[in-house]
């Protein structure tokens, strides 16, 4: 029986000829990630093991990005603790404010993840790196601690669902719209415990930033990981960002998929997920009249350069609606500088938007744009659970940067067309 892309990567990292779905295996990891919320718990657990040192100072990345630059004393204490831990252990990839970016935008950009890697991160959106043809998945702090000590972790080999993407998406249909459409179709547990594997000639029309956005939200369908077939674009991206050796894993012809979906990208419309689940999707043509108070363009889903470019295209020469606060958060320092050099900030500021330093900030209701009771936001983030961006009776609508920017101008959810 053939193997899926995911199964092949896992088999290789387990030192096995082959694996099959359901098998419990121990694998070597190429990168272990943690942030300012999950690492403090991991450090406490790591100390209980008594290992004294980490398995490899180059294969751990610690990114304080959620509540940074620190929003209060408690969060500053948390970061202080992990900063000291990183120093003591000699961890090379600790990213301080000034180099820091939202972790899942930062790691690929720094070349820390390449095709064929196995990556675990104490953050659920670690699945983002599947865009590069890596197996990457979120775990908890204790798993992070054990992997920091041993360089290994355990997995149950997942079954897989194949998504064959076909056709060319319209101008305003981005990776975000594609993944929202898919989650709307299969539900927030539609891929529970499974891999989502993306293939098909439609990939030709998807930039790396589109693919990052798609893989990023695999977890929103309950998936263990999302992974893209490696092509020229992937290899160009890796060549530009990394000198780590990579390996391409292709699914076998006779690999087993529990389901196969064919998705014609040319038929998709800009898509919005209504509160309070990412599966509550509607096409932009069916949203109705929804007044909003805030727009957030940023996060590990959509804070990359192309996201900012498209937001700027929509906002150029326009004004943010007087009843709306529009907050734009480039995901990393590099993206920030690039946006600045391309003149995107002039457009944002002239339109009346605020531009922030990289942070997760409002995405998880941390800081930099918390919602009051009864307020509504359109956000390019990935979750719209109850209370996610602030008050339990506030609402988050998930959308692409184009829809978010158009909504900022209109004062209600609007199409960029």
């Amino acid at each position, binding site marked *: 029986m053939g193997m899926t892309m995911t199964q092949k990567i896992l088999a290789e990292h387990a030192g096995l000829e082959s694996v099959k779905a359901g098998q*419990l295996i121990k694998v070597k990891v190429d990168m272990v990630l943690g942030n300012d*919320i*999950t690492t*403090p*718990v991991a450090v*406490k*657990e790591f100390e*209980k*093991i*008594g*290992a004294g040192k980490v398995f490899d100072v180059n294969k751990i990345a610690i990114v304080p990005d*959620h*509540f940074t630059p620190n*929003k*209060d004393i*408690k*969060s500053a204490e*948390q970061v202080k603790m992990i900063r000291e831990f990183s120093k003591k252990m000699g961890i090379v990839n600790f990213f301080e404010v000034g180099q820091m970016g939202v972790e899942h935008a930062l790691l690929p950009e720094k070349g820390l993840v390449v095709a064929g890697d196995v990556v675990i*991160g*104490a*953050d*659920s959106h*670690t699945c983002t790196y599947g865009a590069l043809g890596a197996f990457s998945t*979120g*775990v*908890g*702090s*204790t*798993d992070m*601690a*054990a992997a920091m*000590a*041993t360089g290994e972790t*355990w997995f149950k080999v997942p079954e897989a669902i194949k998504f064959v993407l076909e056709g060319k998406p319209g101008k305003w249909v981005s990776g975000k719209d594609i993944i929202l459409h898919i989650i709307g179709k299969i539900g*927030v*547990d539609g891929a*529970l*415990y499974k891999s989502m594997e993306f293939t098909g000639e439609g990939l030709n029309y998807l930039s790396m930033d589109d693919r990052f956005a798609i893989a990023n939200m695999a*977890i929103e369908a*309950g998936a*263990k990981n999302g992974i893209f077939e490696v092509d020229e674009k992937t290899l160009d991206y890796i060549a530009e960002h990394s000198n780590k050796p990579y390996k391409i894993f292709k699914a076998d012809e006779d690999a087993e998929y529990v389901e196969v979906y064919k998705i014609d990208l040319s038929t998709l419309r800009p898509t919005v997920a209504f509160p309070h*689940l990412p599966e509550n999707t509607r096409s932009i043509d069916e949203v109705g009249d929804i007044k909003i108070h805030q727009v957030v363009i940023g996060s590990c889903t959509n804070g990359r350069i192309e996201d900012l470019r498209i937001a700027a295209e929509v906002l150029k020469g326009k004004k943010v609606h007087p009843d709306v606060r529009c907050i734009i958060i480039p995901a990393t320092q590099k993206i920030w500088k690039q946006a600045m050099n391309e003149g995107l900030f002039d457009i944002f500021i002239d339109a009346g938007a605020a531009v922030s330093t990289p942070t997760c900030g409002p995405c*998880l*209701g*941390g800081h930099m744009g918390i919602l009051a009771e009864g307020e509504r936001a359109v956000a390019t983030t990935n*979750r719209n*659970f*109850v*209370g*996610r961006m602030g008050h*339990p009776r506030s609402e988050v609508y998930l959308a692409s940067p184009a829809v978010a920017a158009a909504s900022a101008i209109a004062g209600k959810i609007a199409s960029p067309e």
Partner: protein
Amino acid sequence: MNVRGKVIKYGDNIDTDVIIPARYLNTSDPAELAKHCMEDLDKDFVNKVQPGDIVVAGKNFGCGSSREHAPIALKASGVSCVIADTFARIFYRNSINIGLPIVECPEAANDIEDGDEVWVDFDTGTIVNHTKGSTYKAAPFPDFLQELISSGGLIEYVKKQAQGGAL
């Protein structure tokens, strides 16, 4: 190992943001976290939960973020076990790793009602509903997970390996 307690029942897709909202994640102190457990879904939870109580829920329990603070908050609230139709995978791992017993059993998740008195035996996967007089059977954990659990969680397991010279 077995537990017995009164059931607090919730629906499908209970996410980690409602189990413990991110605004409280600037600490990892279990007692602090427990004070806000379930706050955005059920303000009354912290007042009504008694040591030993069992949370029963529908599909995809614990979906969302990887925060281990979620099972930690439930455990520190006194919850002795969570029974669900299905669990989100990171929550599942985290619970095993930190020693919060969880049982996947669609039949029990469906049938048990809020306030029922329930007994769970983890070794055999048997769940007895004393209020209704019914019994449900969950699949027992695979061997490797049994080993993890009986070692006292992942950290103890890794420690044992380290002492055995495997590290």
